[in-house]
């Protein structure tokens, strides 16, 4: 077991001798997002020129006058230029040239500038992710407002059909690809080391890289607007995606890039959780949030490669005329659907599991009770993660796959509700005769359980093949996954931010505004998406700008609720900005009186998380047990660590 016992700087991982100290350079000469931006622009221009040079001879380019090769190479060089400008490869090049790697900066950076640079501290990466994810989420949310504005009328009136499709595609893709990391990125990276008693994550460079790829993916995805967007929605079904205009390239590159970011983030977290637990942090004492991060990370590394492969094939189909997905030329449009959903269904659980983790973490604190059925909760997460790889063909029930497959995939899909039920058993058991404190995180957790209940129940309807014939591809599906993702993941994320922001910034979000935020969001959310179940069953397909005129009243109701929901999310933003910038109400060490290991250090945590590696003495949920030991000894007497380490190898 690789447990760091030296009080090593969290910012200076990697091998090599301590280098000679560098002289201080002004900030604008050091790599940061401004140099990265320059690199990206230069990279795009170079790539585009190269693509024009290669692709101009193509018959197709001459015919249609659009050169996907130039766009794709432009994007790829943009990514490369961005990373070079950011200084990602600096240490690598130094090492290759035989120079020593400077250990950390001249003085550990504490200023604001470190948040705009390739910083290796997991706490900085967490904060970067937090601001990034909120930006991506709000961008996607604005597109949703545009969709609901268009759907106020049963024919098209605000957006042209092509603009509507563009907005639908941008909304769907922004939410589904960026939000995969909405919890794992900020809260996972920040809290996993703190929760397992480690000073750092296993691969800080990979972790920082996983974040810095996301702004790239975000910009590339948005840039497809300049090419007229893409007409396929977030699923990108071939052959439509092969036929589509140049905006499609942005979709494929951005989604593939986000897939790579997921793989990197996943490996880092898996290795951290397995190898960097403090002595005494047995598997049976691991906080539920860490279990969720572990299962999600396995889904990341096992599912995302399939996505990257699928996107790669789309790109080659579009540029160099391979025909993976063109039926007439020996390919198969089913191949794309299979590849996409083989990633896409585990992805749905990539979105659900972190939510399970957060609510399971929050409810014992505010019920003042141990988590009911700890092993059941962990088993539920593993069961969901495992089964998620065996259900993807339920997206293809009506597509003309081998009909024999359908009872099988109906069974596997319905089986997922068994481990999901475990999560509910744990919640109900934890609430039993509890002493409930209705704080904002707790409200969001309860909101999660109620929203996800409807998401789960409607999922059973969709898994039933005959019922799915009506519901498939309609607004019913759309309402279903908004209940699980928006009502589940995003509610859990907000709950997590309210719960952990005092730890991350030492600042408490305003409680009163937080309650307004929750109630407006919760009511508006249900008022938006509950009627959409009916809209779908009444025959409105997804992604249409025209619908039956008798559905206008209900669609208008939904749109107005959606605007209120948007206002509720705006309240979160207002609360976040006002609390962190203007009010700055300081949070004392452990405002929730939580037993979690992350709450035992000061807020915000010191640079190295723990002065000494702590020795974990008991589980994190032993509330109400008078005999329970404190969760950890933060300053174990000398000799205890080495003694624990000697036993750690056999303990596993």
């Amino acid at each position, binding site marked *: 077991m690789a447990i760091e016992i030296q009080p090593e700087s969290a910012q200076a991982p990697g091998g090599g001798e301590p280098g000679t100290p560098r002289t201080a350079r002004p900030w604008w000469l050091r790599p940061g997002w401004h140099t990265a931006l320059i690199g990206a622009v230069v990279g795009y221009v170079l790539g585009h020129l190269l693509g024009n040079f290669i692709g101009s001879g193509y018959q*197709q380019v001459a015919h*249609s006058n659009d050169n996907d090769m130039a766009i794709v190479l432009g994007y790829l060089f943009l990514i490369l230029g961005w990373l070079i400008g950011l200084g990602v490869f600096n240490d690598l090049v130094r090492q290759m040239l035989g120079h020593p790697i400077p250990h950390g900066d001249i003085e550990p950076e504490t200023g604001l500038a470190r948040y705009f640079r390739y910083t290796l501290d997991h706490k900085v990466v967490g904060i970067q992710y937090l601001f990034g994810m909120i930006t991506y989420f709000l961008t996607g949310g604005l597109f949703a407002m545009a969709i609901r504005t268009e759907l106020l009328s049963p024919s098209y009136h605000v957006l*042209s*059909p*092509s603009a509507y*499709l563009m907005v639908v595609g941008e909304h769907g893709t922004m939410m589904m690809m960026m939000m995969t990391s909405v919890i794992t990125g900020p809260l996972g990276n920040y809290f996993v080391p703190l929760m397992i008693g480690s000073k750092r994550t296993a691969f800080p460079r990979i972790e920082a890289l996983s974040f810095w790829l996301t702004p790239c993916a975000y910009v590339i995805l948005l840039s497809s607007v300049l090419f007229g967007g893409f*007409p396929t929605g977030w*699923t990108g*079904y071939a052959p*439509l995606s092969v*036929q589509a205009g140049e905006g499609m390239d942005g979709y494929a590159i951005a989604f593939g890039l986000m897939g790579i970011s997921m793989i990197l983030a996943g490996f880092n977290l898996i290795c951290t959780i397995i190898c960097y637990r403090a002595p005494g942090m047995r598997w049976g004492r691991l906080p539920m949030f860490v279990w969720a991060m572990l299962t999600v990370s396995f889904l990341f590394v096992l599912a995302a490669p399939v996505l990257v492969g699928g996107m790669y094939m789309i790109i080659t189909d579009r540029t160099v*005329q391979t025909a993976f997905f063109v039926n*007439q030329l020996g390919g198969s*449009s*089913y191949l794309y659907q299979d590849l996409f959903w083989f990633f896409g269904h585990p992805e749905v659980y990539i979105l659900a599991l972190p939510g399970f983790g957060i609510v399971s973490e929050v409810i014992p604190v505010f019920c*003042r*009770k*141990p988590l009911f*059925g*700890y092993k059941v909760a962990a088993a539920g997460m593993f069961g969901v993660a495992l089964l998620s790889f065996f259900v993807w063909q339920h997206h293809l029930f*009506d*597509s*003309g796959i*081998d*009909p024999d497959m*359908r*009872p099988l995939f*109906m*069974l596997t899909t*319905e*089986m997922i*509700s068994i481990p999901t039920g475990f999560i509910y*058993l744990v919640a109900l*058991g934890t*609430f*039993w*005769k*509890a*002493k*409930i404190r*209705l704080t904002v995180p707790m409200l969001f957790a*309860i909101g999660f359980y109620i929203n996800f*209940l*409807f998401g789960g*129940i409607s999922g*059973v*309807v969709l898994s*039933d*093949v*005959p*019922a799915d*014939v009506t519901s498939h*591809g*309609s607004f019913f599906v759309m309402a279903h996954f908004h209940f699980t993702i928006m009502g589940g993941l995003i509610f859990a994320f907000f709950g997590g931010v309210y719960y952990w922001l005092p730890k991350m910034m030492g600042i408490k979000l305003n409680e009163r505004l937080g309650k307004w935020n929750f109630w407006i969001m919760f009511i508006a959310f249900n008022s938006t998406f509950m009627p959409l179940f009916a809209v779908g*069953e009444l*025959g409105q*397909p997804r*992604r249409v700008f025209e*619908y039956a005129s008798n559905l206008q009243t209900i669609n208008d109701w939904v749109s107005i609720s959606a605007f209120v929901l948007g206002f509720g999310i705006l309240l979160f933003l207002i609360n976040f900005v006002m609390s962190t910038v203007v009010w700055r109400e300081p949070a004392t060490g452990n405002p929730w009186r939580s037993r979690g290991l992350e709450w035992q250090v000061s807020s915000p945590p010191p640079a190295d998380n723990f002065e000494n590696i702590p020795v974990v003495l008991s589980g994190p949920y032993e509330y*109400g047990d008078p005999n329970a030991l404190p969760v950890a000894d933060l300053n174990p007497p000398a000799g205890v660590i080495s003694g624990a380490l000697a036993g750690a190898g056999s303990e596993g």
Partner: protein
Amino acid sequence: MAEESASPSGPPAERNDGLRLAILWVVASAICCPLVYIVWGPHLPPGAMSSSASGQQFDLTVLATIATPVVLGVLIYFAYALTFWRAKAGDETDAPPIHGHTRIQLIWIVATSTIVLALAVFGTYELIAPAGAGGGEGPQPIWKPNTSNILQVQVIAQQWAFTYRYPQYGGMETTQLVLPLNQAVQFNVTSLDVIHDFWAYQLGVKADANPGVNNVAYTTPQHTGSFVVRCDELCGLWHGAMYDYGQVMSVSGFQAWAQQTETAMAKITAALPPYALTYDPTVVPVLGKVLVQLGLTGAGGGFYNPNDPEQP
């Protein structure tokens, strides 16, 4: 893990929470389940216009009825917990340390597994008995209607319209979908360009239209009237406008319509490619960029560029 007893250890002889919850739940379910099944069920979509539609309606009714106690159980539990198990103001103490309860966990796991497996069996039966329940079964359907008198209708999807071919009526092609009452219909759904989806809403039929693939779905109309056909798979610019209306007529009305249309269309039918289960889009006009370069343009010489905002 400590397997302590979860049996009520709260304030003695005050209230039996378990019993009260159980009574609330049973009473609420006993009221709501029959309401859902008897009152709401017959109004559930997609109606009863065809065999597959009424099958789906029955399915939705059963699922809604089973879901009712589950939803009620969780909601009642949370409502009860938030009413009775709130911390009193100023009470900073912890609640009883209950780590788990083996019997309850076992009962829960067995109960949910039983429900889920029963649902899977029910779904499979409801899929097989009504000949695939109106869903697309692919080129080799294994569940077929129990009759030899089947009307063949080919649905040809393209950007952004459906056309229908009746091989038993001289292979005529029309933009109108007309079906006879009480006769089994076999839809052969295919596409000329990208993936579409043929969704005859009131008939409870949904089948993807894939280029180069014949996707078969069955139904038997049970009532006359008109129904909506929509494209249900995003297929490009005018996806939202890709819909038309079909008609279920009496058998004699259908025969009259078919013969009249066959005669009227005779000239056009002769110019069409011979009836086949799929059409090679390099022969029949089509498709995307890869084929545009061959100089081929779309249906009827009217290929729409994906960015072209022209009315179809």
